């Protein structure tokens, strides 16, 4: 059952040193900035972070990296024009990097949430990202074995949540949110608006409340968020 937290700081208090944390977002779209900032204040260290990127500019995920709280990052596209925080840590050997093709990253997360241990995929065959991976020819085509990527915690951003944890998203800010919500033992969603059960059309629910453990409204004028 979802708990509605008073603040983002309360919401992230479950995170421990050494946890694997899925963080939603594609660049800035869908990045749960309030939760990431709260995690930085919470101070957990030795984290493994899974995100599509490795931080932009100096805020959000980049600030978490700059604070030295992340030991290892799993992502598809670390190098961007504004990824200087990561670039510097990586070049100084102060962060581990696992690069995963974006579709394999998404499917590994989805698999974890769906109870699938591993899957065969043609993506990456014949490349250096296939090194050391088990292969199998299926229907005449070579595939690689990729393992599920489960986590302790997921931090995601959604547009609106109801008091039983059902979520809907906005436009391309949806990206990794729905799959990450399924793949963590404890999913924390920051939302712009909390509404009553029934206010979200059941046909339109994207993430069902069963996947969400904690929700927090992070818009400053979000009176409806107060439990």
């Amino acid at each position, binding site marked *: 059952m979802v708990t509605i937290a008073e603040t983002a700081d309360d919401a992230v208090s479950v995170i421990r040193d050494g946890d694997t944390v899925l963080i939603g977002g*594609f*660049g*800035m*779209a*869908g990045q749960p900035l309030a939760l990431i900032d709260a995690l930085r204040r919470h101070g957990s260290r030795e984290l493994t972070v899974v995100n*599509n990127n490795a931080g932009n500019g100096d805020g959000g995920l980049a600030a978490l990296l700059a604070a030295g709280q992340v030991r290892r990052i799993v992502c*598809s*596209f*670390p*190098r*961007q024009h504004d990824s200087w925080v*990561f*670039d510097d840590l*990586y*070049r100084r050997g102060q962060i581990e*990097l696992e*690069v*995963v*093709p*974006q*579709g*394999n*990253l*998404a*499917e590994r*997360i*989805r698999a974890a949430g769906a109870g699938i241990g591993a899957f065969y*995929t*043609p*993506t*990456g*065959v*014949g*490349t*250096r*990202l296939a090194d050391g991976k088990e292969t199998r020819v299926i229907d005449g085509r070579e595939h690689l074995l990729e393992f599920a990527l489960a986590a302790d915690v997921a931090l995601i951003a959604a547009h609106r949540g109801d008091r039983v944890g059902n979520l809907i*998203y*906005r*436009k*391309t*800010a*949806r*990206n*990794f*949110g*729905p*799959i990450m919500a399924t793949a963590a033992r404890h999913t924390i969603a920051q939302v712009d608006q909390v509404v009553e059960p029934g206010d979200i059309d059941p046909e339109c629910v*994207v993430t069902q409340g069963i996947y969400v453990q904690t929700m927090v409204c992070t818009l400053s004028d979000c009176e409806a968020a107060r439990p």
Partner: protein
Amino acid sequence: MSIVEHRDRGPLDRNELAAEVARAIPSGSYVNLGIGQPTRVADHLAATSGVVLHTENGMLGMGPRATGSEIDPDLTNAGKIPVTELPGCSYFHHADSFAMMRGGHLDVCVLGAFQVSVTGDLANWHTGEADAIPAVGGAMDLAIGAKSVFVMMNLFDRAGRPKLVPECTYPLTGLRCVDRVYTDYATLYLDANGPAVVATFGIGVAELSQRLGFALHPHTPSKMGERP
């Protein structure tokens, strides 16, 4: 011979190349345009083409780049540039987006490249330099996912070395995955017999073959789009 040699002009510029690729996309296709130069192809698709653009961060029916008050930080393309919606667009999460791609539902994807081999191997994600930070994004998924993979690139790098090569020296993105190569100097289809020339721009086939260092054969329409 079915090669069209355009010798009375120079090589294609970036916009002409984008227009050439746009002309090759069948109307009604579902298409993914890679980051960078391929994005320009969208500017040359006729509104009546019925082409539906897919962006791997979770949208079908992507519209043009957003300007002014249209800019919405929750609506971007894979290059993280603000874009707009077209009527009939839809959103989905990342696993569905790549299932759409990997599952063979996209008709065409257009990618940039560092190198393409004559057998269709693609290298476009890593320069192989020791201090380069590896970043693959969706390149490997795109390379193997779409029904047809088009590469658009300059045929020669800044040092004048061919980027269409007998064998790639840069780290690979995908094996035998490229169907067509659209370049400033020539359009080539990679069929079972090797690179087949469809058209040249500002150069003849003989000189082109000499500069590339391997034999070229004319494109035979019946073999169109055949994978090597």
